[in-house]
């Protein structure tokens, strides 16, 4: 049963990464596409908490780092999404209840994730990102993530609730 769960989770992450590079590239705004893997991690954090989301963030980030058009140093998106998963998991008790709080969480996570990725790029000079470009890309990516959240997040939340192992009350 838990192997099946892991398989479904891996499938969701692969689907998110592939949609992001192969389908949403047709709908990109100046090259910016919604970061679906990040939304998956946030959804996991809202349902299952920080540790689970951090693990999922690590795997999802590695998938973005390794899937073909990527050319940056491996581990940079993994780092950003581990932090995002952990942070989103810490605020989940407030954000799990209302839709507005969930959207705000996605926006904050998108900002933190993309900024962390840009910062790690600046530190490593991989590529040497000018601050101006980062400041242009980050707001657009936050907006785009918020825009797709109402369509994607409810489905993901329901999926993660279904996947949650039945637990005994403490």
């Amino acid at each position, binding site marked *: 049963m838990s192997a099946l769960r892991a398989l479904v989770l891996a499938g969701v992450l*692969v689907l998110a990464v*592939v949609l*992001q*590079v*192969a*389908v*949403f*590239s*047709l*709908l990109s705004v*100046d*090259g*910016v*596409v919604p*970061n679906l893997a990040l939304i998956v991690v946030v959804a996991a954090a809202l349902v299952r908490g*920080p*540790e*689970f989301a*951090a*693990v999922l*963030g690590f795997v999802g*980030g*590695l998938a*973005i780092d*390794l*899937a*073909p*058009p*990527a*050319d*940056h*140093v*491996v*581990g*940079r*998106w*993994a*780092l950003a999404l*581990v*932090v995002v998963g*952990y942070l989103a*998991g*810490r605020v989940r008790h407030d954000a799990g209840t209302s839709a507005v709080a969930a959207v705000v969480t996605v926006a904050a996570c998108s900002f933190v994730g*993309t900024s962390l*990725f*840009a910062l*790690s*790029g600046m530190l*490593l000079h*991989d*590529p*040497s*990102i*000018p601050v101006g*470009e*980062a400041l242009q*890309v980050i707001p657009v*990516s936050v907006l785009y993530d918020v825009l797709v959240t109402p369509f994607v997040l409810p489905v993901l939340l329901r999926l993660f609730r279904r996947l*949650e192992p039945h637990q005994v009350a*403490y």
Partner: protein
Amino acid sequence: MPPTSPGRRPNRAVPVLLLLACLTLITLDARGGSSSPLDPVRSAAGDLFGPVESTTAAAVRPFAAVPEHFRTTNQLRGDVARLEAENSRLTSRLAGTALSRNRAAELDGMLAGSRSTGYALVPARVVAMGPAQSFSRTVTIDAGTTSGVRPDLTVLNNDGLVGRVLRADRSTATVLLLADQESVVGGRLGSSMEIGFLRGRGQVGSNARLDLDLVDASASVAKGDSLVTWGSRNGAPYVAGIPIGRVAAVYSSPRQQSMRAVITPYVDFTSLDLVGVVVDKGTTSDRTVITAEGAN
């Protein structure tokens, strides 16, 4: 993993361990230089994700033509009076059979390009584009080592130079676009034969521009001059004589004793579809290689 109950302090060990794992990966990959210890992992992931991306792109391709209609119409609306030729092409696009006709025209253009330059081309389609959030301008094409594609080959389409192959997996390859900030191409001005180095700005889309630093600061450059590739030794990574773009503006700075020109590329990087990879004449490929003598 036990779920954390509300009010209980979460276990910090897991995120910290994962962060350390990320830092280890980054160090391994960044310190490795040209041959990273993670290359086998990358190529395995390429073999896994590549076919999935190709299939997905093939499935959504029919729908891709729909926004293309509106985008092109909008873009050309202002230019219609000035560009009668463009206008007729636009009407023919609106007429309906848009996509396949464009494809045929692109293929025709590439065949003609191959005739005039004498290069052999492996045709390929762009199946995935790297997001701008990753700050590198790369695309995936659906031809890999089985089609004769290797790293450091020139990629072009019927408009001009697109970029070069960074990495080739079995069925897909990653292409670094001209517009990427890490991309440097040797360019030669068509009118004065002056040479210079062309760098990307990281922008794609209709405002994509490239910067040309000319070697000779006293060279005369006129607006509208066309720029072609200068060519490298043995044609890797760039073969000679491929059109890149035209000069949009010229700046000279006496202090730095250099001349800088801004180039508008001929290629539209956001609507890349059919591209050709320049290969050696005798390359064995699982698909038809376009050569000057026709397809074989």
